[in-house]
């Protein structure tokens, strides 16, 4: 059995086993943890093949699914999505672990939903067929919706419906694009469609490309989210139960960014380049706007939520710089952001659990009472603001470099966000952890062993990502190079009006440069 299939099926098996457990049993947590850890171990087996051929999908499964409609179940991992699959399989056990302390009601159902969510996420990240991708995209949405709505705060119903309807509105547009594209190409298979575009057997007019791109972009932009489609984010992040917020910020937000990189660039190169300018403007707006809003939030969770919005802007910026460094940085930032923001949300969850509040004014001087918690928060926070030797620095630096190659002004504006993020995070830290202990802060105790357990691995990963980049970077670079090459080749077939494929291949970079000089490619 393929390792990838095993990784996919383990959470699903766990989901069904938990459903079959008697309702009053306490075994759900153990079952969920077991299956998510098993999925993690199994996903480690994906690394070997990927490091050999990072630019090609490995551990591929390709079987006929819906015969009458020519839909294949096609999944595989390459140098880009392997890290996102691993991010999922690492963070899900963490999420399940912290749920034990943070979720007390109807736990059986909650753990079942967590495993279903993991199944959906692994599917989204490994799908190589547009139909399969869409199916997993929505499969991941439903359990998250139920977790937010069923276990969230006072306004959980509102938050959950807003989250669902927002996402759904975006994704139906993607569905329309997928169906249209598949009707044109005669297949839903991503690799085949890309190959057909490259070889010229399938050509999309500029107009078609633009509309199809916008359809995909609608779904991804809501999910990332890109300013101004972010309005679901603060309410969902704050209302969701702590483990769900953790997973939303750490993993689910990567779905959209990954989609932009994987699908929008190679499939609709012209559309993507045509829209790049305003998308980058939106991304930079998001970076600065998110930072400014985070600055004035009186609530710890909201500060982290808006900082997340700000940091995700970098990912989008990196992708739409169309540079090797930018794309590498974007992927690296996705993983790094997942780990650092995840850690921040876990620690914020612990604070909330102890204090019963997330308002900054209810804290103060926590460091003296809970030095361990404060230290862990400090590390995660420093990683988040991009301190060198910690995870996010690598990603943000590469994104800025990529952006600077394309347009220096972009990089300059985005860099403002880096400075702002240091300001608001440090200020948050100062008000929460330093100074004199505030009123009633005495209830905040230090982390226990069971609470350290999920934090320590994340801290280790943050340091690892920040210091030994070479263990992650080569596959990312190779896969991104391949992807950007595809994007360029698909682009100039239209620019050159179909010369011979060989000619196109050799001239790839030249024409790309020429295209950029003309400005709009028409």
């Amino acid at each position, binding site marked *: 059995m393929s390792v990838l299939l095993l990784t996919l099926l383990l959470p699903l098996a766990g989901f069904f086993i938990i459903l079959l457990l008697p*309702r009053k049993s306490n075994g759900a947590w153990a079952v969920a943890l077991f299956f998510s850890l098993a999925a993690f171990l199994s996903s480690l087996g994906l690394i070997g093949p990927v490091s050999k051929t990072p630019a090609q999908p490995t551990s591929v499964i390709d079987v006929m*699914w*819906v*015969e*009458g*409609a020519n839909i294949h179940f096609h999944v595989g991992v390459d140098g880009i999505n392997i890290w996102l699959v691993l991010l999922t399989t690492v963070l899900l056990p963490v999420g399940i672990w912290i749920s034990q302390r943070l979720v007390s009601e*109807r736990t059986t*159902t909650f753990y079942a939903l967590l495993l279903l969510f993991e199944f959906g996420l692994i599917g989204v990240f490994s799908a190589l067929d547009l139909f399969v991708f*869409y*199916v*997993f*995209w*929505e*499969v991941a*949405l*439903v359990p998250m919706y*139920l977790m937010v*709505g*069923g276990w969230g705060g006072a306004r*959980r*119903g509102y938050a*959950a*419906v807003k989250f*669902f*309807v927002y996402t*759904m*509105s975006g994704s*139906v*547009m993607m*569905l*329309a694009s997928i*169906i*249209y594209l*598949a*009707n044109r190409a005669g297949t839903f298979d991503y690799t085949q469609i890309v190959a057909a575009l490259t070889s010229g057997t399938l050509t999309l007019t500029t107009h078609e490309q633009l509309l199809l791109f916008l359809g995909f972009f609608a779904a991804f932009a809501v999910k990332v989210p890109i300013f101004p489609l972010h309005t679901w984010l603060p309410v969902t992040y704050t209302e969701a139960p702590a483990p769900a917020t953790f997973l939303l910020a750490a993993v689910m937000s990567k779905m959209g960014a990954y989609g932009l990189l994987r699908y929008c660039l190679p499939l609709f190169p012209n559309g993507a380049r045509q829209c790049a300018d305003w998308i980058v403007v939106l991304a930079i707006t998001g970076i600065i706007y998110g930072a400014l809003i985070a600055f004035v939030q009186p609530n710890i969770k909201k500060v982290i939520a808006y900082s997340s919005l700000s940091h995700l802007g970098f990912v989008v910026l990196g992708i739409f710089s169309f540079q090797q460094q930018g794309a590498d940085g974007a992927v690296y930032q996705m993983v790094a952001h997942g780990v650092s923001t995840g850690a921040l949300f876990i620690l914020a969850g612990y604070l909330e659990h102890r204090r019963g509040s997330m308002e900054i004014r209810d804290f103060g001087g926590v460091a003296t009472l809970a030095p361990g918690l404060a230290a862990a928060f400090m590390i995660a926070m420093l990683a988040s603001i991009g301190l060198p030797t910690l995870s996010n620095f690598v990603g943000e630096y590469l994104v800025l470099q990529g952006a600077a190659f394309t347009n220096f002004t972009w990089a300059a504006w985005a860099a403002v966000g880096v400075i702002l993020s240091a300001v608001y995070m440090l200020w948050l830290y100062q008000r929460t952890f330093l100074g004199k202990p505030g009123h009633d802060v005495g209830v905040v105790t230090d982390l226990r062993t069971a609470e350290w357990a999920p934090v320590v691995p994340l801290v280790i990963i943050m340091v690892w990502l920040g210091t030994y980049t070479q263990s992650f970077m080569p596959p990312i670079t190779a896969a991104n190079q391949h992807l950007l090459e595809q994007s360029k080749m698909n682009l100039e077939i239209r620019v050159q009006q179909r010369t011979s494929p060989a000619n196109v291949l050799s001239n790839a970079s030249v024409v790309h440069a020429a295209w950029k000089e003309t400005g709009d490619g028409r």
Partner: protein
Amino acid sequence: MVGNFLPTSSEYIRILPEIILCVFGVLLMVLEAITSERQKPILGRISLLGIAFAFAANIYAYSTPGQAFQNSITVDAYGTFFRGLVLAIGALCVLTSFGYLRREQAESGEYYSLLLFSLIGQCMLSTANDLFMLFLGLEISSIATYVLAGYLRDDRRNNESALKYFLLGSFATAFLLYGVAWTYGLTGSTNLNEIHRVLSSHGQGPAPVLIGIACALIFVGLAFKVSAAPFQMWAPDVYQGASSPVTAFMSAAPKAAAFAVFLRVFTTAFGTLSPRWVPLIWSISLLTMIIGNFAALTQSNVKRLLAYSSIAHAGYILVAFTADSQLGVAAVMFYLASYALMNVGAFAVISHVSSKHERYVRIEDLSGLAKRRPAEAAMLAIFVFSLIGVPLTGGFFAKFYVFRAALSSHLVWLTILGLANSAVAAFYYLKIIVAMYMHEPGESMENLTSPAPGTRVTIWVSALGTLVLGIFPSVLLRFVTDSASVLPR
């Protein structure tokens, strides 16, 4: 040509399902008179048996496909599919009715025999190849359904529902009949193939304006039956007033049969006029989706909400109709099958939760269902997600297939607007999930017992069916695609 008028045995086999239903229907009426109050539950089981036999006969009849009775009915894959579908819906509704009628203390044979008669009409519609058979089937189906809608005589809303349905329904049927008369006058025939032949003869056919009017009149009659806008007004009141199992039946079976004949008439008889009616159906489908979805947004009664949702779903089906292609016909068939499952299942849960005299039919009354009865809540959640169109449910694949057909026929705007509509729809469907999973149990949950065995079977079968159609759509897809090729396109 004397031989032509003496039906052969294979012709009888082709209407065997109708014959069986008829025999069982009459039998139930007789038994009704001679069974005691305590023995009444047996009548429901007998009707179930009748439907099972009819289902078997339907499959058997397909072994010798062909025309019967001077080509007035035709047994082909398409007709067999719809006959099987309405029979399956009938069986599920009978199962739901067991518990429902016992709860309302209204068990009797006439209920079941009416249901069987209604099914006869729908079976005839599925295989009708003649405008007369269409009219006969529609009337048999409708009259039985009018009575069923008002079956609980002492209930005021039941009466209102029946009366509204009857008055408006007869009005619509009159339109249809007038259209049939026009068509006969213009083409000299009521046979669909014959009409097609006359209309496609160049230069000698009737004046386009006149045949257009005939076509429009028939269109009005059928659009009423499928509750397409602007002829959808009756649906919410009728669905709300009727008993839940009857509503489930009305929203699925007559609609499926009406769509079956709708497609057959418009692709066979009026196929040559398609450039004229496609734009019409284009706008009607859009209007139906919009009215259904936006009106549903403000509903607080679950049955009414599902009524508007049913209108909206008719709109999606009309999108596939607009595609006017084989893929479109296959999409209609797939959609109706998965819609029937999810809708009948949803109504079965509602019928159980609503308690005696359907006191609890507001959305708030579903509050806390997940805590009290997690299994039923999970099933209803599956149905609702399927109605929204979330992947791995039949509803998603059906919608996907509909819009695929639409895009293959270059209906880009209709697809975009239709999909945008389905995002709007998520908003009101989610109210049900929110109530079930996110609110605390209220008064309605206090005396909620576990559902009757029949209802439970319906719920489980529909839920499993919904999931199977979503995960392995190919089980149905191939048959549907093959049968769609029967219609000339």
